[in-house]
C-alpha cells in the first residue's frame, strides 16, 4: 500500500482531496439528509412558489413552493443508490462475461466476445431505453437498464485484465503447485483482475448517475414529485424562462458528483498504472 503515500504533484493531491470531500458530503447527504436541511423535500407552500435563491432558500423554490436545496439534498440518496446498484449490476454481469471469456475455453470466449460486441452495437442510452420499453418505466427498471448498458464496456476490460492474470507467473506457479482451479480462481485470478478494475467502479458510478438522471429527465425513471435530480430538471424545463434555479441547481449537482467521481477514478487509474 506504500504507493498510496508516494509523492505526487501537490495539485493532483489537492484535487483528489477535493473529490473525496465532495463524494463524502454526498454519502452523508444520502444517509442523513437532515444534517444539511431541516425542511421536508415534499413540503408544499403555495404562497412561497418561485422564490429566487435567497437566504433560507439557497437554491430558491419551485412551482409548489418546495425548497429546491432540500430536494437536491434528498435527491442525493436516489441518485447515489441508482449509481451504485447500476454499477454493481453492470460489474457482476461483466465479471461473469469477462471470466467466461478468459477462462472457459475458446468456444465460450468466442461466444461471450461476440455477445459483448452485439451489446456494443447499441449505444448505451439506446440499450437502456430498449430495456425500459420492454420492462416499463420506473426507478428500478431504469437502474437495471443503466446497469445493463454499462456491462459491455466493463466486460471488455475485465476480459483483458483476466487474460493478463491468467498468463502471469503467479498463475503458472499455482498450476505447477497443483492448486485446484477453483482455489486459483478465488485466491489469485479474481483479486488480481478486480483490483485494477476498482478505479473503473469510481468512474462508472459517476457515469451511471448521469445516465439515470437522463432517463428520469426523459420521463422513464423516477416520477416528478419524488426528489430526483433528473426528474427535477424535467419539471424545471417548463419554467426555464422565469425560474432558472429550478434547472440550474439539480443539473449542477449531477455535474459536480459525476465530475468528482470521474476525476477521482482517473487519478486512481493513473496510480494503479505506476
Amino acid at each position, binding site marked *: 500500500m506504500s504507493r498510496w503515500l508516494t509523492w505526487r504533484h501537490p495539485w493532483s493531491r489537492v484535487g483528489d482531496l477535493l473529490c473525496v470531500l465532495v463524494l463524502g458530503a454526498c454519502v452523508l447527504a444520502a444517509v442523513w439528509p437532515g444534517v444539511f436541511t431541516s425542511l421536508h423535500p415534499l413540503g408544499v407552500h403555495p404562497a412561497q412558489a418561485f422564490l429566487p435563491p435567497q437566504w433560507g432558500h439557497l437554491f430558491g423554490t419551485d412551482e409548489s413552493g418546495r425548497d429546491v436545496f432540500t430536494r437536491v439534498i434528498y435527491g442525493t440518496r436516489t441518485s447515489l443508490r441508482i449509481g451504485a446498484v447500476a454499477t454493481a449490476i453492470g460489474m457482476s454481469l461483466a465479471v461473469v462475461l469477462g471470466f467466461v471469456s478468459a477462462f472457459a475455453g475458446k468456444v465460450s470466449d468466442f461466444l461471450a466476445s461476440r455477445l459483448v460486441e452485439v451489446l456494443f452495437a447499441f449505444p448505451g442510452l439506446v440499450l437502456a431505453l*430498449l430495456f425500459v420499453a420492454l420492462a416499463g418505466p420506473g426507478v428500478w427498471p431504469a437502474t437495471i437498464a443503466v446497469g445493463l448498458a454499462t456491462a459491455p464496456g466493463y466486460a471488455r476490460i475485465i476480459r483483458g485484465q483476466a487474460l493478463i492474470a491468467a498468463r502471469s507467473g503467479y498463475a503458472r506457479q499455482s498450476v505447477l503447485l497443483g492448486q485446484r482451479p477453483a482455489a486459483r480462481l478465488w485466491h489469485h485470478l479474481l483479486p488480481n483482475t478486480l483490483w485494477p478494475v476498482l478505479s473503473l467502479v469510481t468512474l462508472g458510478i459517476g457515469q451511471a448517475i448521469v445516465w439515470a438522471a437522463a432517463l428520469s429527465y426523459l420521463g422513464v425513471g423516477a416520477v416528478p414529485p419524488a426528489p430526483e435530480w433528473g426528474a427535477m430538471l424535467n419539471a424545471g424545463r417548463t419554467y426555464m*424562462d422565469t425560474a432558472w434555479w429550478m434547472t440550474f441547481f439539480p443539473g449542477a449537482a449531477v455535474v459536480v458528483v459525476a465530475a468528482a467521481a470521474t476525476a477521482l477514478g482517473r487519478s486512481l487509474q493513473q496510480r494503479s498504472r505506476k
Partner: protein
Amino acid sequence: MGEPLTTPVPRGGRSSAPGWRRWPVLRRLLVRLAGAVGVLWAVVTLVFFALRAVPGDPAEAIMGGPGSQASQAALDRVREEYALNRPLLVQYLLQLRRTVTGQWGDSYSLNRPVVSLIREQIGGTLLLAVLALILAWTLALLFAAWSVRSPLGARLSSGLEIAASAMPHFWLGALLIMVFSTGLGWLPAISTGSADALILPVITLAVPVAGFLGQVMRESLLNADASPFALTARAHGLSETGVLLRHTLAHAALPALSLTGWAFGSLMSGAVVVENVFARPGLGRLLMGAVLKRDMPLVTGVVLVIAIVYVLVTLIADTLEGLFLPEAAA
C-alpha cells in the same frame, strides 16, 4: 454525457487467413463485413426473444406492454402479422424474413409504417450527429495541440476535458438555452428549421464527446511529440507548427479515428436527449415517444437503424484505419 469511460479501446485486426495476407485491408474489410452482418442478426434475435420473454400476451407486449390500450382489431392484426399462433421457431424465422425484406410493421401509436417514419426522421439526426462529430474532432485537436505547446494548456485542458466528459447533455443544453436564447436572444431555443437553430444542439452534442476524444488525442500527441522523429524534424529546422502539421498531428488523429465508431454511437445516444431538450424532430424523439408508449415495432425499428448506423460507421472507420496504418491490420 457520453458513453462509459470504459469503452475507448481501439480494436486491432483479428483472425488471419494466410491467403489474404497480401491484402490486409481487403481481408480486414471482409472480416469486418461478416462481423457486421453477424451483429445485426444478433440484434434482431436479441430483440425478438426479449419481446417474447415479457410475461403475458405477446400481442399486448408488442403493442403498448401488458394491459395495452390497443383495440381488439389491432391486437388481432398483430397476432396475424407476427403469426403468434405458430411455433416460436416459425415466428422467429418469419421475423428474420420480414426484417431482411424491410417489412418492419406499423407503429401502433402513430398508425403509420415504421419504415416511412424512420425515413422521414433519420436525416435530421444524421446531420446533427455528423456536424457534432466534426466539431468534437476540431475541439479535441485544438485542445491536444494547446497542451503540447504549453504546460499550462496541458493542465487546463485536462481539467476541461474531464468537466466536458462529465457534462450531461440535458443540463448543458438547458444552460445554453438560458444564456443564448432566453437571456441574450441570439439563437432560437427550439428547432425552427433554419440553420441557426442547429448551432446550440450541435454544441450540446459535441462537447462531451470532445472531452473523451480530447483525452485520447492529447495522450497520443504528447507521445508523438516526444518521439525521435519529432526531434529529427526539429533538428532539421522545422518550426513547431510545421512539426505539428506535418508529423505529430497524424499520430494523434489515428487513435481518435479508431474511436470514431464508438463516438458516433455515443452521439446517437446523446441525440435522444438533445432532440428532446431542443424539441428537434429526429430519430431520438421518435424513439422516446415510442418508448413512452411501449410501441415495440417502432422501438425495434429505430434501435435496429441505430445499430446499423453504428456498425456502418465502425466499418468505415476501421477500413480507413487499415488504409492509413496497414500494420495494424496485418
